[in-house]
């Protein structure tokens, strides 16, 4: 199978980025939008074509999906250890290509309406293209180092886009926070990569992931503090993944990242970049599974489950609709991590892996849809807060319906997409770890509750008096909504178990009816409670929250995690570590340097008299120079 054309998929957005970035001033905003959309349409079509070719034409040989790699050596260290640049095509990378290109295309189209009239319109589209390019590069990476580079690139584009409204201080702070927190996590990632490179002698995914390969078989050869060094490396790599995917306790940047324009939140902070951590673990899944009997993988499962629960609880009390969605995203990614963590490797045992990827796929659709709907609502009422909304269903019918579809999908109501993928996750958890299963089940209920709290709060509930009568968004914004709503319905019917599996051999998917019934029942319960609380304006919610009292306050303050971080960084690190170092730097290091600089300028001023402009002086110096040279050297010579 010739996969060379796949290189075009990232290169097209990259050229769009260069074009829009360089000719920022020359290109008219209207045209730049079209350039972005057209460029990405081509990438999307190529992705679909690649997916079709891979899954249904060439990919499967003897019932096993093959991995195709095309690469060149970029930097050589030793015979085995070199950094390559290339593209890797296997089920998950192709699946991610489809996700990224679809969501990115929809966001591009949507942004043409949403960002209309904004000063930095062209800049916005160039950043979007940069992000899309980086994400494609990340997905197609053939080795740890390449993925790391694109990993940082998505970080940078995320930073640029969060801080897009750079005149708002909160946006700047949020961008910095996101960058620093994820960079901190990436530090672990980098160390992990270096450990892997040092002990296994390769960065290459194919070599690393080979279950019979030396990287996996020799994991026990070196150990550190009771764990294999490879396990340490995997944990550190997961630290990077947890940073990007906003897993507890590195999640604090995600809610703040909502300062960015809403289409950005939909693309980066809901559907694509934040699942990079999941993708990373999935990419190295054989290593996680086989090394030290899956110790690192267990950590992944527990971190995922805890984050999922933690975020879901916080989401219940938030009043900024984008923040609710942000915590919901965190919660759902926790779900995916959990599913990966409880997965096996061979055949049907790998249902967790399949479920995780499946959920990643469906979640991308309905979560992007939720964000875009939220954007549409914010566009109409010019506020992020639930208190400023209510009764919008009459003014915004399309947004209303599509939001409802997405909410049903995420709540796991059949036949919407979320039901199918969530059900598989619950099956996987049920069969491997009962504790995690109950956590997941509880989170499913909470998810349904807070989603419908949001839904009823926005579209039903009290009749708010609006200054301007809200109106439905233009077609450029409603079309992506409708398309994603369609996808949120049909995405669940994709036969993932036959396409994307841990050992790349498809298996027969099945439906575990008792578990499904329980899950749906829990979801419906959540919805009904939300209906009781929020459909009509009433006091139930207030009574209930005062019943929980202090716990409610904790939750709505996100368990004071931001404050804890602030305390540790500001009070301890800044005051007692950084300040003394800074003082030393200022006084001694800078002082010396500045002293030298000032002295140089001083000398320069002192000697300016030499250049008098009088020719006789010049001649004097000339002859004087000759005489001095002659005297000195003849003197030295005679000695």
């Amino acid at each position, binding site marked *: 199978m010739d996969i060379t054309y796949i290189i075009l998929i990232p290169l097209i957005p990259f050229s769009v980025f260069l074009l829009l970035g360089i000719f920022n001033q020359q290109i008219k905003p209207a045209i730049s939008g079209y350039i972005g959309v057209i460029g990405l349409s081509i990438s999307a079509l190529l992705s679909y074509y690649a997916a079709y070719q891979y899954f249904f034409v060439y990919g499967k040989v003897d019932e096993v999906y093959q991995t195709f790699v095309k690469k060149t050596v970029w930097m050589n260290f030793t015979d085995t250890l070199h950094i390559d640049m290339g593209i890797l095509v296997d089920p998950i990378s192709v699946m991610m290509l489809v996700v990224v290109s679809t969501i990115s295309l929809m966001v591009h189209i949507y942004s043409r309406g949403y960002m209309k009239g904004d000063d930095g319109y062209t800049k916005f589209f160039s950043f979007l293209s940069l992000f899309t390019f980086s994400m494609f590069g990340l997905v197609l990476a053939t080795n740890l180092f390449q993925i790391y580079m694109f990993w940082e690139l998505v970080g940078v584009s995320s930073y640029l886009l969060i801080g897009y409204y750079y005149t708002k201080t909160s946006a700047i702070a949020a961008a910095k926070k996101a960058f620093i927190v994820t960079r901190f996590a990436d530090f672990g990632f980098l160390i992990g990569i270096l450990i892997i490179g040092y002990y296994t002698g390769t960065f290459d995914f194919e070599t690393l992931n080979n279950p019979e390969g030396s990287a996996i078989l020799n994991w026990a050869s070196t150990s550190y503090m009771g764990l294999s060094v490879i396990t340490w490396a995997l944990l550190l790599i997961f630290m990077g993944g947890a940073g990007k995917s906003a897993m507890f306790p590195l999640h604090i940047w995600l809610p703040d990242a909502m300062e960015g324009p809403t289409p950005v939140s939909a693309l980066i902070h809901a559907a694509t970049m934040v699942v990079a951590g999941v993708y990373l673990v999935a990419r190295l899944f054989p290593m996680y599974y086989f090394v030290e009997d899956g110790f690192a993988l267990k950590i992944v499962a527990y971190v995922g489950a805890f984050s999922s629960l933690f975020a879901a609880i916080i989401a219940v009390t938030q009043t900024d609709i984008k923040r609710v969605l942000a915590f919901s995203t965190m919660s759902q990614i926790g779900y995916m991590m959990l599913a990966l963590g409880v997965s096996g490797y061979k055949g049907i045992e790998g249902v967790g892996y399949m479920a995780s990827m499946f959920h990643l796929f469906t979640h991308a659709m309905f979560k992007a849809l939720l964000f875009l709907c939220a954007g549409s609502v914010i566009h109409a009422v010019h506020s992020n807060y639930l208190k400023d909304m209510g009764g919008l269903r009459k003014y915004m019918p399309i947004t209303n319906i599509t939001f409802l579809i997405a909410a049903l999908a995420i709540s796991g109501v059949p036949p919407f997409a979320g039901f199918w993928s969530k059900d598989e996750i619950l099956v996987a958890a049920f069969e491997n770890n009962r504790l995690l299963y109950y956590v997941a089940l509880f989170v499913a209920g909470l998810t349904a509750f807070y989603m419908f709290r949001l839904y009823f709060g926005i579209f039903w509930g009290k009749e708010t008096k609006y200054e301007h009568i809200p109106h439905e968004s233009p077609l450029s914004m409603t079309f992506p909504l409708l398309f994603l709503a369609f996808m949120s319905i049909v995405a669940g019917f994709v036969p993932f178990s036959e396409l994307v599996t841990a050992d790349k051999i498809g298996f027969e998917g099945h439906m575990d009816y008792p578990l499904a019934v329980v899950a749906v029942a829990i979801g419906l319960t959540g919805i009904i409670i939300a209906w009781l609380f929020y459909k009509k304006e009433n006091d139930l919610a207030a009574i209930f929250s005062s019943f929980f009292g202090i716990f409610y306050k904790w939750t709505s303050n996100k368990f004071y995690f931001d404050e804890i971080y602030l305390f540790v960084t500001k009070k301890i690190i800044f005051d007692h570590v950084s300040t003394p170092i800074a003082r030393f730097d200022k006084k001694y290091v800078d002082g010396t340097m500045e002293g030298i*600089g000032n002295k*140089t*300028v001083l*000398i*320069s*001023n002192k*000697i*300016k008299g*030499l*250049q008098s*402009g009088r*020719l006789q*002086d*010049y*001649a004097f*110096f*000339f*002859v*004087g*120079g*000759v005489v001095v*040279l*002659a005297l000195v*050297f*003849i003197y*030295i*010579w*005679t000695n």
Partner: protein
Amino acid sequence: MDFNSFIILRQEILLLAITLGLVVGEIFIPKNKKRYIVHLALFLFGIHTIVGFCNIEESSLFGGMFRTNNMIHLFKNILNVGVFVLLLQSADWIQEKVIGQNKGTEFFILMFSSLLGMYFMISSGDFLMFFIGLELSTLPVAALVALETSKRISSEAGVKFILSAGLATGVSLFGISLLYAATGSIYYNDVMTTLTSNNLTLLGSILFFSGLAFKISLVPFHFWTADVYEGAPISTASYLSVISKGAAVFILMILLFTVLKPLMHIWQTIIYVIAVATMFIGNLFALRQQNMKRFLAFSSIAQAGFILLGLISGTQLGTATIVYFVLIYIFSNLAAFGVVQAISLQTGKENRDDYNGLYRTNPNLSLVMMLALFSLAGIPPVAGFFGKFFLFAAAASKGYYFLVFLAVVNVTISLYYYLLVIRAMFIRKSEDPIPFFKSKIYMRLGLIIAVIGILVLGLYSPLYDYIFELSTIFNK
């Protein structure tokens, strides 16, 4: 003189023919057609430059007074390319300012005569030919400096130059006569074999060296530089700083590495002292210059100090490095002078503060200037970085670590003032910035060639390998 002599002398003869042709043209071309002289001269010199690239055999003429080989040939080609770019950059100025005063042809005749002098100087096989070449290359430049006779500052610069040059020539000639007295010959080959270290030869070579040091503007023989550059037309300043200096460096290198080799341990120490003085004085003075021409004058003094680091090594690496560095220096300085020329021609402004906010109005010019200054400062990945790197490597390979350290200190100082200009262009804002303008085709071509030179020399390594191969000639 047989036909073969013509082949060996073909660069000189062709240039002489062009010069004489222009003289004839000056007489016969009617006044209202004079502006075509510029196109004609450019065209002829362009052909001369291209023809110059034809290969040449190692040979000598006139009983060894004139000699040539691949390396010398390469020097001439480098000078040709430099002069060609310089002419391209000067063409508009000549057409607008000089033709009107009826001095357009003179400019070319003088410059070509001076270049011819350099050819003979580089090709010289004895001190007589060297001296004739030196004089022929210097005297026309005095006229070029004072070309704008209507300006007082230009005349003053001309006088300063001719008097300083006269002094330098006198000292140099005295040095040659002492060497002749000591060895009994003026032929390089004879001098080389009979030269021994004693007070007489030492004094002779110091005096002789001072004359050349004047042309390269090494401290303390540099005082004329700033005043002359400031007063002279930009084209002349550029010529002095790029072509004249390059040629002098080449011949100094040839003489030091061949004729004066027996005194090597002495002149290495002399060069050491002068290199340190030149770098520091050049840089410290450059720090406070406001006028761009003076600024570039001191910058070029400092650069000459860096070139000495290559000379001091006296090895093949040193030779190759000097040639390579001079080549880079020619392109970088031409780009910088070109931008100054373009702006001065359009607006008459020559001060650094006038450049405030230039990037907003003339982004392309600013980028060219930035590239040129980065190259002069030695910032990777532009060519200047590799040039400096090799120079330092050459000096370090001979164990001059402290000298390299001092040079690095000076690079840091120089970075500061180069960045001052870049800051003015890119960061500073101005109430009254230089308005946007589009230069004429010749100027743009001249700048583009210079920029290509900077980029290609930095990125295309075979050029350096080629120079390195050739440089065995002087390090047998």
